[in-house]
């Protein structure tokens, strides 16, 4: 009877232990990555390639998501405002929502699937096929070779991709407004400017930068700790996407509490 009653407590304890160990292991990898910055000649040449893979190659999916988000935001704003609020507030809602929330978060979540999964699967496969050991035997520090270029590339490129996504969302909202909502361009732009603060852009870019850092570093962490064969790689990939998506949402709330 006591055992049954204590089972949830035990499960909570086990879960807390696993979580704490995982956070500790991720933190340790981040510290190693900071230390590995001294091997500039190893990570610098690889960073540009990673910026292309992580950033440039992610632009189409980010723009696709942002475009449809902008369309839906404009239509839902018009539906909500019917009669009660002037229609130019569509511009306010599209602009503010894309900048403060949906641009960074949706781009972050989409890229956690695309980039986080890719990093985790690639490094995980290298782990289980002994390619990481091979790097070490060839006198390469694996963290400098694999982790640093990806984390730097993600931290730089996520805000750039997010900025493009925000712009695309606003343009899509504007086109929707003038084509489907009988709103003129000056009205939409007036709405857009009404409550705009330059800090909105800073806020979006701070969030996107933090998302880039966590998605890439968590992807590297799961990849580095892959065990077993193909099944292990699959587990790591799923784990990386789930963990980075959750951390993105937690960080989203954290920045809102801290900065707004």
């Amino acid at each position, binding site marked *: 009877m006591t055992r049954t009653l204590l089972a949830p407590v035990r499960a909570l304890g086990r879960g807390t232990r696993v979580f704490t160990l995982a956070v500790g292991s991720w933190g340790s990898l981040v510290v190693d990555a900071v230390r590995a910055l001294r091997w500039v000649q190893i990570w610098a040449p690889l960073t540009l390639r990673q910026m292309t893979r992580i950033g440039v190659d992610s632009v189409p999916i980010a723009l696709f998501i942002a475009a449809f988000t902008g369309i839906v935001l404009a239509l839902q704003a018009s539906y909500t405002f019917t009669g009660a609020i002037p229609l130019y507030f569509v511009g306010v809602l599209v602009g503010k929502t894309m900048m403060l929330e949906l641009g960074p978060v949706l781009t972050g979540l989409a890229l956690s699937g695309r980039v986080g999964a890719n990093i985790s699967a690639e490094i995980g*496969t*290298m782990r289980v*096929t*002994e*390619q990481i*050991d*091979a*790097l*070490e*035997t*060839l*006198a*390469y*520090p694996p963290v400098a070779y694999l982790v640093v270029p990806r984390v730097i590339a993600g931290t730089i490129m996520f805000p750039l991709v997010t900025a493009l996504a925000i712009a695309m969302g606003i343009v899509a909202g504007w086109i929707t407004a003038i084509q489907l909502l009988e709103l003129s361009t000056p009205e939409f732009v007036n709405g857009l400017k009404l409550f705009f603060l330059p800090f909105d852009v800073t806020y979006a870019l701070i969030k996107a930068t933090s998302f880039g850092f966590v998605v890439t570093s968590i992807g590297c962490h799961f990849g580095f700790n892959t065990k077993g064969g193909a099944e292990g790689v699959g587990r790591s990939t799923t784990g990386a996407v789930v963990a980075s998506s959750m951390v993105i949402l937690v960080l989203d709330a954290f920045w809102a509490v801290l900065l707004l």
Partner: protein
Amino acid sequence: MSIEIDGIHKAFGANQVLRGFSVEAREGETLVILGHSGSGKSVTIKHVVGLLQPDEGEVRVDGERVGGMDIEELFSLRRKVGFVFQFAALFDSMSVADNVAMGLRRMKEVSDEEREERVREALRVVDLVGFEDRAPSELSGGQRKRAGIARAIATRPGYLLYDEPTTGLDPITRAVVDRLINRMKDELGVTGIVITHDMESAFRVADRLAMLYEGKCRLEGTPDEFRNSEDPVVRAFIEGRPELMEEAE
């Protein structure tokens, strides 16, 4: 010039793999370490290049303790100890030539021209001329092993560690790889440690053998000493007769 493995113990969780294993690879010889699958052979040679650290005991290369080395000293050690992985561990995203050049790129004293020359030379030694631009996925199992050997010898190491070099190969390719191991010793003067459970291959390449059993060295000696051993565990392994092992237990 020698590799001394001195009483090393290693456990992974509750699994005690090595229990005081000692063996020495002397200059210019090929030492074969035999043992069942899972007996700790690969774990043993990973200690030599510092990929693993022993729980007890120590490994010395040229008299220097591997366990006490900092990262830069480990890099220097790894430049003189080539490692041939069981499944070659070639980098998927690179061509064969780029794989072979990887170790050389970390050597500042090697110019671009010299690096290209050394890559050509390493590929010539393993008979892979013409395969420079192929991706690892376009190579057969034997070619992958040979590319792995080319990558390991490109830095001209004094030692080569071979982890199951003939596993999964057909008999002809096995013989080719064995011949290559002997060429490394005869032509390049390389001291080698070969991990295997392939007895035919072991007797073809070994100057001396050591059998790893239950985490310790069961027998160390010349090929003839192994062939003439009366130890039932050794005989069971060499002859592939598990009943001898059961009788011994």
